[in-house]
């Protein structure tokens, strides 16, 4: 990728520099397709996960409704990323879509029975159904293989936000039955601002961006050669190392959960309940600290050099109880006291030790600072 940044050339141009750039893009596309288990022509490069999710939800909805006016249902799970929930809500407000939200259980897993029943009843009304592969806040892995099969059998267009899961898992086994899959490079250790929508037939997708007709007409705009080269390289590296690193990071995550529980006995693990489970992404531990407000904990841990996240933050940075934690039925106190710890390839056991050392004092202070009565806002 560094080499590419030094070179010029629009891959859509016919001159030598353009040809050279196009070759890089197409080799990257082939490499990504091979690593994900799809055809090169299925890879639509985008500016990242948010664009892929928007393109998929809106692009499929418009296409499906134009083909069959009855298809107005946009079905999403309640724990989707905002870049899925917000386009769905937008389609409801502006495009007469009927937005259906699927419930999840207390571990944050989509209720497969409810989903099956819904599909059997309304298959011909559904324009698009979107369920993420693994939740970004809880790490809970969703039954996407079953959902993909169900949708394929029922003629339902299925989009999967795979941004969080692809660094850890191989979609090859089920993705041929899915319509669309969102991937982001920076979650793989690649550059920010680039990603892809893996799509089975670009002709069945209305574009968001109109113009030069790049990416088979699905996404106009000059293609970002250097970032795409970096994306392909990062995915290749991730595919080669992910089994080993999943094992290592899972171990570290379980150490973290056990270490925190020793220091703060009343801590609650959110999401998949079994430690050392394949139902949870290796790198995520979402923990609730009763009686604490997450923004206070976050500030105190940050002062100790420990970076973690509260549920979510609005544009202005106000900590909010996360919609995901509300969806799994956490009460207000536990939702407001939740922190998400993410571990990556460069995390070490000394990071975990630093966290468990800093936590008791931080929790004590945060509890003292929490004078607020639980409020129902």
């Amino acid at each position, binding site marked *: 990728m560094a080499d590419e940044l030094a070179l010029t050339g629009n891959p859509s141009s016919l001159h030598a520099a353009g040809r050279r750039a196009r070759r890089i893009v197409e080799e990257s596309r082939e490499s990504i397709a091979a690593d994900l288990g799809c055809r090169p022509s299925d890879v639509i490069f985008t500016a990242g996960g948010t664009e892929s999710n928007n393109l998929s939800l809106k692009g499929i909805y418009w296409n499906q409704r134009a083909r069959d006016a009855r298809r107005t249902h946009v079905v999403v799970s309640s724990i989707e990323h905002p870049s899925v929930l917000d386009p769905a809500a937008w389609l409801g407000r502006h495009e007469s879509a009927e937005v259906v939200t699927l419930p999840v259980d207390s571990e944050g897993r989509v209720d497969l029975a409810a989903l099956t029943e819904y599909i059997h009843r309304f298959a011909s009304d559904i324009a698009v159904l979107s369920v993420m592969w693994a939740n970004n806040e809880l790490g809970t892995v969703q039954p996407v293989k079953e959902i993909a099969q169900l949708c394929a059998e029922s003629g339902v267009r299925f989009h999967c936000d795979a941004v969080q899961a692809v660094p850890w898992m191989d979609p090859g086994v089920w993705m041929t039955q899915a319509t669309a899959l969102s991937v982001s490079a920076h979650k793989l250790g690649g550059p920010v601002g680039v990603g892809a929508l893996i799509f089975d037939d670009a002709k069945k997708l209305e574009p968001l961006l109109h113009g030069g007709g790049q990416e088979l007409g699905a996404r106009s705009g000059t293609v970002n050669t250097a970032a795409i080269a970096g994306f392909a390289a990062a995915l290749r590296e991730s595919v080669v190392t992910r089994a080993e690193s999943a094992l290592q990071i899972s171990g570290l995550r379980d150490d973290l959960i056990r270490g925190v529980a020793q220091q703060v006995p009343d801590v609650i693990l959110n999401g998949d309940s079994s430690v050392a489970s394949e139902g949870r992404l290796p790198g995520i531990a979402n923990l609730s600290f009763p009686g604490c407000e997450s923004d206070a904990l976050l*500030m105190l841990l940050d002062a100790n050099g420990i970076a973690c996240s509260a549920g979510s933050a609005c544009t*202005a940075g106000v900590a909010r109880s996360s919609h995901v934690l509300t969806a799994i039925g956490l009460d207000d106190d536990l939702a407001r006291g939740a922190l998400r710890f993410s571990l990556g390839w460069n995390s070490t056991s000394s990071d975990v030790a630093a966290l468990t050392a800093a936590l008791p004092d931080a929790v004590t202070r945060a509890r*003292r*600072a929490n*004078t*607020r009565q639980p409020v129902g806002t």
Partner: protein
Amino acid sequence: MPMKVLAAMSGGVDSAVAAARAVDAGHEVVGVHLALSREAGTASTDNPARGRGCCTIADAADARRAADVLGIPFYVWDMSVEFAATVLDDFVSEYAAGRTPNPCVRCNEEIKFSAVLERGIALGFDAVCTGHYARLATNQEGDHELRRAVDMTKDQSYVLASLTEHQRAHAIFPLGDTDKSAVREEAARRGLLVADKPDSHDICFIPDGDTAGFLRSAIGEASGDVVDAQTGNVLGEHDGAFAYTVGQRRGLGLTVPGDDGKPRYVVGVDAASNVVTVGPPTLLNVDCILAARPNWSQQVEVNSSIECGVQIRAHGEVAAAVVRPQNDGVTIDLHEPIRGVAPGQLVVFYDGDLVLGAATIDRTTRKSQTTA
């Protein structure tokens, strides 16, 4: 001595420079933007619609940018629940009772130097730093004395005068010894892009300035009589006595001038009977003020007579008076009558530039007659 300091950053130039000076003083500074309002377009709501006034998303972004320039950590604290419970509710109920509250005083007492300060102390901070124009110094007894700012046109000691010794001991006002124009220059020199941002005025949670409209929607309309204070005649109708303030001239809706042909002013607001009394400006003259809930920052003796200056609104003149502390209040005898004394406002006692204390105006008398 270096302290851990919580710098309240509104997104404006003053609090940004105040935070910068706290950093320069060697303190460990963390910036905090307070999300106070729940209106659309403000920081405590997810609605990205652009709003005006304070604590909008743009203000939070300005504050964050300033913190980034200073290289300090920055957080947004959602204080909208506390703000609604202590400042907004009080604002509405005071007006409903016919008084004229000062929400900035209340916000300093209950939010910045109470909810925020106490949360900060619990989290390990030593002080709250703000961009208020006022000076604090420790006297020989070790007490913290509040004085007016050097820049009298920006002096905010009035809205800080009701702080307790505990609150003053944990407050830092780095701008008290500097002119506003110098603060703007310093902001520009430090690369703080908020240097040219206009000053905030009015009431932050009523950005369009329509206080009467805000109160009508909060309290509801209730029509009542506008009565001539001298004749007792009903001159007109109003849609809620709560929306009127003693000394007010505009918005009375009277079509006939007074007998003397001069404009008439609100001279009394009676919330209980929902009557607004109007009269000539001479009726606004007040000789004596009775104030409640005094907060003395200097030692005073009950029933003693203190010759000092009094200020009865945020940017008002100082009047000379004899002030007599009582057990549960203060009696203020003015040397010369003054106008526009509104119950609910703070009266602040000054010895030169030193704040002696403050109390809330309860009633006024004029030529030994009670008017409000």
